[in-house]
């Protein structure tokens, strides 16, 4: 398992626990701003992070020289996804509009990076 995948999976497990902790707080009468954080910890942090990490590891190889595509792009994708999610966690309770925009753009760039690096690896053998 490549190091980047290990980072993805370990962080996704942290987000999984954090999401369910947030759900407990929410069920116990937590604040309104918690709902989008809970949902996105689960679907972006846990599920999407897990998918990005496992796909990077297990999808068909791009080439002998670059089996997992452009490694720099993959690392940037990882960093942008984590930064985008963490920014959202900070920005939601503060209602910091500028940070929400930054979070949105960061996550979008992560999505584009993942698609660009994964698309050529999705091929028939």
């Amino acid at each position, binding site marked *: 398992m490549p190091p980047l995948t290990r980072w993805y999976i370990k962080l996704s497990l942290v987000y999984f626990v954090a999401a369910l902790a947030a759900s407990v707080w929410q069920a116990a009468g937590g604040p309104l701003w918690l709902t989008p954080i809970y949902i996105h910890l689960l679907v972006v942090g846990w599920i999407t992070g897990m998918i990005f990490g496992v796909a990077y590891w297990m999808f068909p190889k791009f080439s002998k020289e670059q089996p997992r595509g452009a490694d720099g792009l993959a690392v940037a994708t990882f960093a942008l996804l984590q930064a985008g999610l963490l920014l959202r966690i900070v920005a939601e309770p503060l209602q910091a509009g500028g940070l929400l925009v930054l979070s949105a753009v960061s996550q979008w760039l992560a999505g*584009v990076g993942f*698609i660009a690096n994964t698309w050529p690896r999705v091929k028939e053998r």
Partner: protein
Amino acid sequence: MPRVSVWFVRAALVYLGAGFTVGTLLLANKGIGFAPALWRWLPVHLELLLVGWFVQLVMGVAYWIFPRFGMSPAARGREGLAWLALGLLNAGVWVVCAGALAGPPALATLGRVAELAAAGAMALNIWSRTRASGISPM
């Protein structure tokens, strides 16, 4: 990766891009409020990512990696069912999105029925492959 899985996964990547784009606009709009009417797109954001991305990716990867029946051309069961599931799922996503944005409630129901049929077709294909490996006796 078999051809039908390539289609499933590439379609899932397209929905990932579309769903993230809609989500980016929604979140940016939440931050700086430039287009309040964008909130109508929230159900589209959910549909694109939950069904178009997550569900479709799982279906394509499952068809690819589940145990096969040896190495024959029919190793992955009835391939036609997988193609049918692909068509129905994608038609369902489009119809549900159209219904959420503009159509009558019946349109969303129709889209859900197509997605239900896709799930049934995929289950029929995967059910018999949910077993020990077709290559080894284990």
